[in-house]
């Protein structure tokens, strides 16, 4: 079989950095070919060259035997290459159907054929088994649901080559299964799929071929059935790497956070649990189960209708985040670019932000010396890779951005840390470092509540797992009891569920 897309000897040089060196790969129709590598390895640069965002400094892109010289993404799209980006580009004020057909709306004569547009869109959504109406406003949906729209977009375009950049990072297990069903159908249609993921487990589930990139070079292309996950990880980091969850045994300390009967009508109901010092409590459940909403309410960012919150045994009322922050609670949000960081500001300005009032000098002046000292301290402690503390956040990789956010809360003296999908979009190496930092935090007496939709992560890192389903807590599992099956049983709606 001939490859439908080939990249040959691709090199890409930016001022000061060589992002890709002599990379070649073949992509076959009907096959999922995954690119793996650490952040900075060159995966996104390669994808951007394939999709017309960049032109290669050297090398060629060949589609269906013809050399392509894309000078814009539009040309790549017209040639049949569709990309599902990691950063969702959904127009919030348009409906689902309008988003799917944006720019290609079906027309009746010269007017928009809204009926056909909605019908066709609903067909695709039903086909994908996604519970969504084509007429819903896209802005009302959460990240996972918006990503479904992106996938529907690509399906409707009938592309020859589909690039999926970490499509599962916001999806729950059942939605991932639904996505993989779509991928299988695309395969049957002989579409070539270029897949990027940090979740190596997905390789065995869905892909045939994997190319490992490291430092801009291709290390190897292997058939998935011929290698183990460990071998792939080793290729990615260039050395032997053990179980990267770095799990240690923790001794449980005193009660840190206890919630009783937390309720917000229509969102979550009767949430009660306790979290102790020295432990990592995993919060599992399907996307939409209400975990993020519960945590935002606990943090004071949103209101609760009823229920009590106790911090170290004493009842507290968090009417706004400042109350939670003053009580030494920190929240690392699920979407770091949108709600976690001031992207246009410097590292030191981000790290100091919640703690500025506590370090005022004189008449409300910022203590700039403290700000510099503390930023340098944490850049070193957390091994944040950046030129210096004045570096602008948008230039950092996802993993380093996440470390800045963590620093922010450590500087704010957080004793209870709520982490919402903390390693989303972060590569293996950076994740491993993050887990180490999490362990250090709880070993020093802190308490972590971690929301995660990634099963291996939940199982690898948590001391116990609380599962939510449909806005309620459906059960709790100890580390021994927790496994994929037991968690899924509690997370999914079955016929015996209420």
């Amino acid at each position: 079989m001939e490859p439908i897309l080939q990249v040959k000897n691709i090199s890409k040089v930016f001022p000061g950095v060589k992002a890709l060196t002599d990379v070649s790969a073949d992509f076959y129709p009907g096959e999922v070919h995954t690119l793996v590598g650490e952040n900075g390895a060159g995966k996104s640069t390669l994808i951007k060259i394939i999709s017309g965002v960049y032109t290669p400094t050297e090398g060629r892109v060949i589609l269906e035997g013809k050399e392509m010289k894309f000078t814009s993404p539009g040309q790549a799209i017209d040639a049949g290459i569709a990309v599902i980006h990691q950063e969702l580009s959904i127009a919030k004020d348009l409906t689902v159907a309008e988003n799917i057909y944006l720019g290609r709306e079906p027309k009746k004569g010269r007017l928009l054929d809204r009926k056909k547009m909605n019908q066709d869109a609903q067909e695709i959504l039903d086909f994908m088994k996604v519970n969504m109406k084509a007429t819903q406003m896209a802005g009302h949906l959460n990240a996972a649901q918006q990503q479904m729209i992106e996938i529907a977009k690509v399906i409707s375009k009938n592309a020859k080559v589909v690039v999926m950049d970490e499509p599962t990072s916001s999806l729950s297990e059942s939605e991932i299964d639904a996505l993989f069903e779509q991928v299988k159908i695309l395969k049957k249609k002989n579409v070539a799929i270029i897949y990027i993921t940090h979740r190596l487990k997905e390789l065995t589930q869905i892909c045939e071929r994997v190319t490992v990139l490291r430092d801009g070079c291709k290390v190897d292309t292997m058939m998935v059935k011929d290698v183990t996950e460990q071998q792939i990880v080793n290729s990615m980091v260039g050395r032997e790497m053990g179980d990267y969850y770095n799990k240690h045994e923790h001794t449980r300390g005193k009660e840190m956070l206890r919630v009783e009967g937390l309720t917000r009508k229509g969102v979550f109901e009767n949430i009660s649990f306790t979290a102790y010092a020295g432990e990592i409590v995993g919060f599992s459940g399907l996307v939409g189960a209400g975990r993020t909403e519960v945590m935002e309410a606990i943090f004071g960012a949103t209101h609760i209708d009823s229920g009590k919150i106790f911090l170290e045994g004493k009842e507290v009322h968090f009417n706004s985040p400042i109350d939670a922050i003053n009580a030494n609670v920190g929240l690392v949000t699920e979407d770091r670019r949108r709600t976690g960081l001031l992207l246009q500001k410097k590292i030191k300005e981000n790290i100091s932000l919640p703690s500025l009032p506590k370090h005022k000098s004189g008449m409300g002046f910022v203590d700039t010396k403290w700000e510099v000292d503390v930023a340098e301290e944490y850049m070193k402690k957390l091994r944040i890779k950046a030129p210096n503390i004045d570096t602008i956040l948008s230039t950092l990789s996802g993993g380093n951005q996440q470390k800045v956010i963590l620093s922010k809360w450590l500087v704010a003296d957080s004793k209870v840390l709520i982490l919402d999908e903390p390693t989303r979009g972060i590569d293996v190496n950076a994740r491993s470092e993050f887990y180490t930092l999490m362990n250090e935090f709880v070993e020093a007496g802190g308490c972590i509540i971690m929301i995660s939709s990634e099963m291996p992560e939940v199982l690898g890192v948590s001391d116990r797992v609380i599962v939510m389903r449909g806005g309620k807590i459906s059960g709790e599992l100890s580390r021994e009891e927790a496994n994929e099956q037991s968690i899924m049983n509690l997370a999914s709606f079955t016929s015996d569920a209420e």
Partner: protein
Amino acid sequence: MEKAKKWVNENVVVVTLIVLCVLFGIGNPVFFSVKNVINLLSQMCINALMATGLVYVIILGGIDISVGGTAALAGVVSAYAGLMFPNMNSFAAIVILVVSGVAVGVVVGFLNGFMIAYLNVVPMICTLAMLNITRGVAYVITNGQPVYGLPDSYAFLGASRLFKTESMPNGILPVITIFTVIVVVLMHILLSKTVFGRHVYAVGSNKSVAHLSGINVKKVTLSGHIICSVMACLAGVCAASKIQNGQPGACDSYEMYAIASAVMGGTSLVGGSGSIARAMFGVAVIAVIKNGMDLMQISSYWQKVVIGVIILLAVIVDMAQKNKKE
């Protein structure tokens, strides 16, 4: 050469200022005379005060186009206040002017800020309406007539100069300039060095992040609007003091100059960035244009066109630089 090019690209407004000074100097060498420079310093002040307030609001991601009307209202109110104390000395006059200005500013700013931050009214609409309301109220309470008959002490702030000499019998240093410098420097320090200032930048950069970092976004926004209106009112009372009467029609279109100054000085309209120091360069550009064209006796109708064109050019060039960076 590369470094020089880079500096030019990042400081378009400074370059514009230098170029304009040279051009107007050639147009009429009187431009560079000591007398004219002092004139310039005095003419810049009203806009400088207004622009300073605008910088806060624009950094917050909003806008305030009511400042012209607010300034006129403050001028008129301070004139009425001045009339109540016909025997006041210069110092007392300044106190009365400032207090009236601050009072009007706090009221208008509170109304703007409350509607924008707590009732979620779109800033453009809210302040557009307030522009009409403040201007209207000024006309109503004066019946359309200027408020005159104020003692000379009232004009001390706006029109007097210190350090009278033989060659300069009117004095060298305009009091209004001293006043403006003090106020602007204080506001600059507030914005750039205090925790409150950081909060302003944070709210303008990303409201959600600011909220989740423990900042009271609504309160900061309200404060920003109060500051903006107070600054506009200080500008207004200075303007009234300058001509020794309160005019309901004063400061017409001043909101445009103030916003243009801030934007030319690099204050991005999407919020999150900007500085008062750089906005002052924008203020200088506009003052130089007006002054230079006056000296060259260009009609005021043409002046309006020229100012508009130059503002557009400076902003377009600035935007082009920003896009290139990304």
